[in-house]
């Protein structure tokens, strides 16, 4: 019993400094048998080997072989060699041959290895920005149009 106690103390004694040691650039790892139901937000790097049901926002996202992500993935760079069901949005997207993606890929630079399973639209980030600007302009136009009859009505009631 004492040996067990000291053993557990040793284990945590080893891990405690690693936590306090200011992990500059060390990625967070979601291991193969881990399942997360919820969203991930990260300023640094995330490696996923397990299952995530939710959105991921991070600087770099690596979806490893065997990993499953159901949800959107946003990042500066996204590397996929596992399965992603959902939208991927990043300036740099890399798709390995073992990847299986069901969903749109919005990118500036896209690399797809032969054999990758990719089902969805591939668009560029700037085209998305243009589309968003267009829809915003359209919305603005409709609101202006909607406002105009009101003005006329007000003017009409004035006379």
């Amino acid at each position, binding site marked *: 019993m004492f040996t067990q106690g000291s053993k557990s103390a040793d284990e*945590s004694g080893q891990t405690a400094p690693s936590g306090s040691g200011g992990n500059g650039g060390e990625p967070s790892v979601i291991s193969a048998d881990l399942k997360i139901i*919820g969203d*991930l937000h990260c300023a640094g790097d995330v490696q996923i080997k397990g299952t995530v049901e939710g959105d991921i926002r991070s600087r770099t996202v690596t979806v490893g072989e065997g990993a499953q992500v159901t949800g959107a993935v946003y990042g500066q760079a996204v590397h996929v060699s596992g399965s992603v069901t959902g939208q991927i949005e990043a300036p740099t997207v890399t798709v390995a041959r073992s990847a299986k993606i069901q969903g749109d890929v919005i990118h500036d630079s896209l690399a797809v290895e032969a054999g990758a399973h990719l089902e969805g639209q591939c668009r560029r980030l700037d085209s998305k920005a243009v589309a968003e600007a267009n829809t915003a302009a359209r919305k603005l136009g409709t609101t202006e149009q909607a406002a105009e009859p009101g003005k006329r009505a007000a003017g009409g009631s004035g006379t």
Partner: protein
Amino acid sequence: MLRNTTAAIDIRRGPGGRDSWPGDAPRTVIQDDLTIIGDLQTDGQIEVDGRVIGNVSGRSVIVGEHGQVEGSILAEMVTIFGIAVGPVQANKVRLGNTAQVVGNIFHNELTVEPGAHHEGRRPWRPNIERKPIFER
């Protein structure tokens, strides 16, 4: 072409080609820049140095000095150096000298180091079974 774009991270080997990535015992590390809003479940080890708003279940759970868990912790072995707000259930529980825990600690073996803060009860149980948070 692929190699150029993946200069920072090799897809198959992980960053820096570290061998800890593929074969080792399942170990999840949540670094201090990661926040998870949701529940985590594994049969392996979880090391939390970031923030989890949700429940954590694993064989072994370690909340590092910078770690923060807002939710219940269910494990066979729990070591806390950081902050835990919520009930803790594990056969072996250790509160390190920097631990700040608010919530009841259901345990079979409890170690509290001098300096640890704990608000709550510490009920003893003969055996604590880890129930899954959700179906895998």
